[in-house]
């Protein structure tokens, strides 16, 4: 039983990582109605920027704030420069664009900061949280920030004009244009916000996994899985999905005899696909009805 609680707690701790990333995934999905494969790399790059700023002597929170602004502007710039021209191109061509962006960001980061791991500080420290050695104060802080972010996003999308306009622009672009929403800029704004949320995710994840150009590769797979499991249209679903994937994975690794340990990830993914087969829009996603 102790092993069980331990694994669940450890699952929640790693789940927080996935949840963070999943939020950024949902954010971009709200804006462009698609998954951005370069998102993890963009988050990694933002984290490196904040690390560099701290190396240059900026205090943590100033570096944090500066990184958020740089990432937000950078996200908008990427959309304007690289993806706006592709707006009329087929979706699959856009996906190829994401892959190209992935390659560029990863390679440039490797050249600038090389591939050795860097230590990244945590604002919350890393002592045991509430006496439990399984969750550190950093991980607790991470869960806290994720929940705050979730609430902020919920309020933004439900109650602000811009938030509503963004949702409208993503799901019904033509109708949105008719009511006077500048859909093109809504998409750019979505990129900016997704990039900034990605930066927060990266900054929270880096103290746990260490900072290096490939740090987001694995995280992104889990982030996608979590977001899809929870329902891509629901930030709450994404966060729940993140924690579920973390717990799933640990329990599969611990309790499925023989192959569990070696096949943790495939088993977790298979479970998610099973869930999707039963509930194709994810746990909390809205089903989409197509009109012929």
């Amino acid at each position, binding site marked *: 039983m102790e092993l069980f609680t331990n694994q669940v707690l450890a699952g929640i701790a790693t789940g927080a990582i996935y949840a963070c990333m999943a939020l950024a995934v949902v954010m971009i999905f709200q804006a462009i109605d698609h998954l951005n494969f370069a998102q993890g790399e963009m988050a990694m790059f933002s984290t490196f920027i904040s690390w560099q700023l701290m190396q240059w002597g900026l205090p943590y929170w100033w570096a944090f704030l500066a990184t958020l602004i740089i990432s937000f502007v950078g996200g908008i710039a990427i959309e304007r420069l690289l993806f706006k021209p592709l707006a009329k191109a087929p979706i699959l061509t856009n996906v190829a664009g994401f892959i190209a962006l992935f390659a560029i960001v990863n390679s440039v980061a490797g050249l600038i900061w090389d591939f*050795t791991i860097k230590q990244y500080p945590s604002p919350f420290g890393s002592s045991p949280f509430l006496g439990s*050695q399984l969750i550190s104060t950093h991980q607790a802080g991470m869960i806290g920030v994720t929940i705050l972010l979730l609430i902020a996003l919920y309020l933004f999308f439900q109650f602000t004009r811009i938030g509503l306009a963004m949702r409208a622009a993503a799901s019904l672009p033509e109708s949105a244009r008719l009511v006077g929403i500048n859909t093109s800029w809504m998409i750019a704004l979505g990129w900016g916000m997704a990039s900034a949320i990605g930066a927060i995710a990266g900054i929270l994840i880096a103290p746990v996994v260490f900072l290096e150009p490939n740090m987001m590769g694995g995280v992104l797979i889990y982030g996608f899985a979590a977001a899809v499991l929870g329902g891509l249209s629901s930030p709450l679903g994404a966060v729940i999905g993140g924690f579920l994937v973390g717990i799933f994975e640990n329990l599969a690794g*611990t309790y499925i005899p023989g192959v569990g340990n070696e096949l943790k990830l495939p088993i977790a993914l298979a479970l998610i696909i099973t869930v999707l087969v039963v509930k194709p829009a994810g746990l909390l996603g809205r089903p989409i009805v197509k009109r012929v």
Partner: protein
Amino acid sequence: MLVTHMRLGAFSAALALLAASSSGALAQKKYDTGASDTEIKIGNIMPYSGPASAYGVIGKTEEAYFKKINAEGGINGRKINFVSYDDAYSPPKTVEQARKLVESDEVLIVFNPLGTPPNTAIQKYMNSKKVPQLFVATGATKWNDPKDFPWTMGWQPNYQSETQIYAKYILKHKPDAKIGILYQNDDYGKDYLKGFKDGLGAKAASMIVVEESYEVSQPTIDSHIVKLKSSGADVFMNITTPKFAAQAIKKNAEIGWKPLHFLNNVSASIGSVIKPAGYEASQDIISSAYLKDPTDKQWEKDAGMIAWNQFLDKYYPEANRADASVMYAYTVAQGLVHVLKACGDDLTRANIMKQAASIKDLELGGLLPGVKVNTSATDFAPISQVQLMKFKGETWELFGEILTGDVGG
């Protein structure tokens, strides 16, 4: 063991003598494709892109080192032309690049290609073409097989012999140990694991209480550490690459697990593992080494280290000196230069293999004092000596004798 080793030593000495006298007798110049009066063409394959791109720095350091050799007049007057290609750590691409090097660029040898799967993919091809696949950059045990693959030679101490040394240490100093193992689920991790189990012998089954494996695609290994701790193990065999090693060290400290911790040499760098993980969390970890760690203060005034720093200042100033791969590449490039010099004017592929198999007690600036390069016609494992070390304060303390752990291929 000792006796056979001495015999081998004597045998290789005789062979070296023979080689020296024969190359003296045949003073006229002899060349194979890729060598001429002015140039020696060396091929190389590295993962400059893709998942293993961290190792690309090895190719870059080698290129810088050959630039230095060329600037200083080359090898017996010949300049090294270093052609290095990217295989992204994908075996089909390695085959394509190896064939391009051999058939299109017409290199003399392929030197230090990286990774066990990529090297396995080209081994048969290289041997059928009779082109040396020299000093491969992998610690797998199978490269020391001169009988079946006379054109392939390893370089660094192999993984299996390293964990055998830890196993023997455990049997001697902690015979009642309960061992927990964490290993990377690939050829590298499995090789280390095998060596460890072989080293424990019959007691392996009873001593190892838990074995955990992880995939490189996993973001963290925290849950494995939790499981290892709850198994009650008091010895931790940590077979992980740098990022995961640092995570493991840090997590151990966080959850208060203090086993006797053995860390594989792959991740023993102070600059790129121990420091990010934290000095305090790393106290008393045991590992082994054959290279000097440039980030370890004890070598600050060492002559070999000073030469290394001068080389980097001049030819590769942007190199990250905390990256263990830079020292590795420097040393293996020196090894190649030694072999090429020994070849004199007979730059045939056969002679290169012959000279590579006749290295006797070669000492290189980057190797630990006492660690020497030795090969023979039957021993294609150039470096097979390591020394144990324990982390104290902010530096590795070497202890015990220089150990030899040759495992046949």
